[in-house]
């Protein structure tokens, strides 16, 4: 018995890893094709401002040195070979290997995204619960209207307004960056970092709140209308008891699933929030790489964010199965999270 469970578990893990590998291969091929076909001239990117001083012979030498004239398939092979050895290439924008840029920048972004993710999850779940329990009343209408409005608001505009009110007008928060300007990295204390993190994180969480509110509200409404809640109410259970013992867990499962599968949106939001607040994370690096035509870094970020989103989805499935025992049985678990997510998207 135990061995069959273990075998099916291993098969499931192998299946998912295969899926990730296939996705990564697709992303790698597709983005490489896009980059090769882009009208950007790699030589002028490499040389930079001195391009006017470069003659045709020097051009040919540079092209030969970096293999710019090789057939695309050969270049792809070379890139893939390096990639498999863990070498993502060199970023000219940051003058550092791509792997290092992504690692450093991602850690900076991680603080921002983690705070925003927790904030939007907790606030969104709380508001959704309130709205669902008070369905049809003023509170519900206000919360729902607010969530729909937020869903229509551009992230960067919300960020600009917060920046104006809190940094320019009230002067409570710093204007930019992750650390105070002109201070040596070792002398920056945690309080300073939090102070700089506050506004970008709030921006990112405000926009992330809307879907959580709407989904939680819907799950709560469905649970409140179910037979088990009707029976409990008939037995004299109070509303708070109903929510605590019968509804909470039912609403938590879809909210958690959604929150984990929204890592892609979270990263997209951080690209915009980091641009507004000049926060030096991976999102800002993505924008810089595209503006500076830094192809190796863009390719690296594409692959990295694919893994990031995939990990979020897998964690979502795991947590969903943990909170909702109905999806836990091994055979049936496969794809159940995917289906639930599709349903959630349909509802949105």
């Amino acid at each position: 018995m135990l061995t069959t469970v273990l075998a099916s578990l291993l098969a499931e893990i192998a299946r998912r890893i295969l899926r990730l590998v296939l996705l990564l291969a697709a992303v790698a091929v597709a983005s490489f094709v896009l980059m090769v076909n882009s009208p950007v001239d790699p030589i002028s990117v490499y040389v930079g401002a001195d391009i006017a001083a470069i003659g045709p012979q020097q051009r040919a030498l540079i092209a030969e040195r970096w293999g710019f004239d090789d057939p695309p398939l050969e270049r792809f092979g070379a890139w893939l070979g390096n990639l498999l050895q863990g070498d993502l290439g060199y970023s000219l924008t940051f003058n550092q290997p791509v792997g290092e840029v992504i690692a450093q920048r991602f850690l900076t972004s991680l603080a921002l995204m983690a705070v925003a993710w927790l904030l939007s999850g907790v606030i969104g779940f709380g508001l959704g619960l309130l709205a669902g329990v008070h369905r049809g009343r003023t509170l519900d209408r206000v919360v729902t209207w607010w969530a729909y409005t937020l869903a229509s608001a551009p992230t960067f505009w919300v960020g600009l307004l917060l920046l104006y009110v809190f940094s320019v007008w009230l002067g409570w928060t710093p204007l930019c960056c992750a650390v105070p300007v002109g201070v040596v990295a070792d002398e920056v204390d945690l309080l300073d970092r939090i102070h700089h993190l506050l506004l970008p994180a709030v921006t990112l969480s405000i926009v992330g709140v809307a879907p959580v509110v709407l989904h939680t509200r819907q799950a709560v409404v469905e649970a409140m209308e179910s037979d088990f809640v009707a029976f409990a109410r008939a037995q004299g259970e109070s509303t708070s008891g109903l929510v605590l013992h019968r509804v909470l867990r039912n609403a938590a499962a879809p909210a958690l699933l959604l929150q984990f599968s929204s890592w892609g949106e979270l990263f997209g939001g951080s690209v915009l929030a980091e641009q507004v607040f000049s926060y030096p994370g991976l999102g800002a690096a993505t924008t810089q790489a595209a503006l500076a035509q830094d192809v190796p870094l863009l390719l690296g970020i594409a692959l990295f964010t694919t893994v990031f989103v995939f990990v979020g989805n897998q964690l979502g499935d795991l947590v969903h199965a943990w909170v909702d025992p109905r999806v836990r049985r091994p055979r049936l678990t496969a794809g159940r999270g995917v289906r639930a997510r599709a349903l959630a998207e349909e509802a949105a």
Partner: protein
Amino acid sequence: MTTAETVVSGAALRLPDRRRRTLWWIASALVVVAAVVVAGTAAVDTAQATSLTERNLAPSWGHPFGTDRLGRDVLARTLAGLRLSLVVGTLAALVSAAIAVVLACAAAVFGGIVDRIVCWLVDAFLALPHLVLLILLAFALGGGTHAVVVAVALTHWPTLTRVLRGQARQVVGSDYVAIARGLGSSAPAIAAGHLARHLLGHVVVGTVLLFPHAILHEAALSFLGLGVDPAEPSIGVLLAESMRYLTAGAWWLALLPGLCLLIVVKLVDTIGENARALVDPRSVHL
């Protein structure tokens, strides 16, 4: 006066029913959106007219939205930008919806390997964060307005495809399609005769609801400097420019254009949600 007439006039005095209110919402939102397009078209020239004596003015009666660093009227620029947003949004929503319909129908009608390929394509397009995908595409197409339009149009179909595929599978699995098959209808005939009719409502609603996403993504790309040519007025470009003058206290440059974008997006969303209420009445009662 007969009894029947009394009943009719009595009905006219009462509040309109929900269906009529829904239709009224759709109609008035459409009128406002159309007005924005007309006003935006009229404002294209004013949007670029500079006046160096009237730089960075706060909102006043002459310039309700104030002026920017070159003395251009921000209201005219906002209207022109909204028009651009609506054009990009319409194009993107139509192209993406067309892709979604073809893929979803193919998946449902042919099933098997085609279905698996479509599902895998959807997964592959959702594997990257949407904004990163847009940045890659816009970069590969060399930037500029046409690059944004193409990038936004080609990436908004996956979620709609998933929804439509679910709906289409229901139809294909139903008894009447089985009977049609038994009577010798071909796959294209089933797709046209049974599927298309059932899906029409969902497609219309899905298309309208794609619209806000497309508009916001266009604005985001332009804001990052990877989208619409900075010389053209677009809401994203306006907001990116406003960032430099925010510390100087020019709040109107950021607040008002963004608010207008929010209102237009919410209007289109209202149209979509109300249309959904007509097509799928069950969704209203949730």
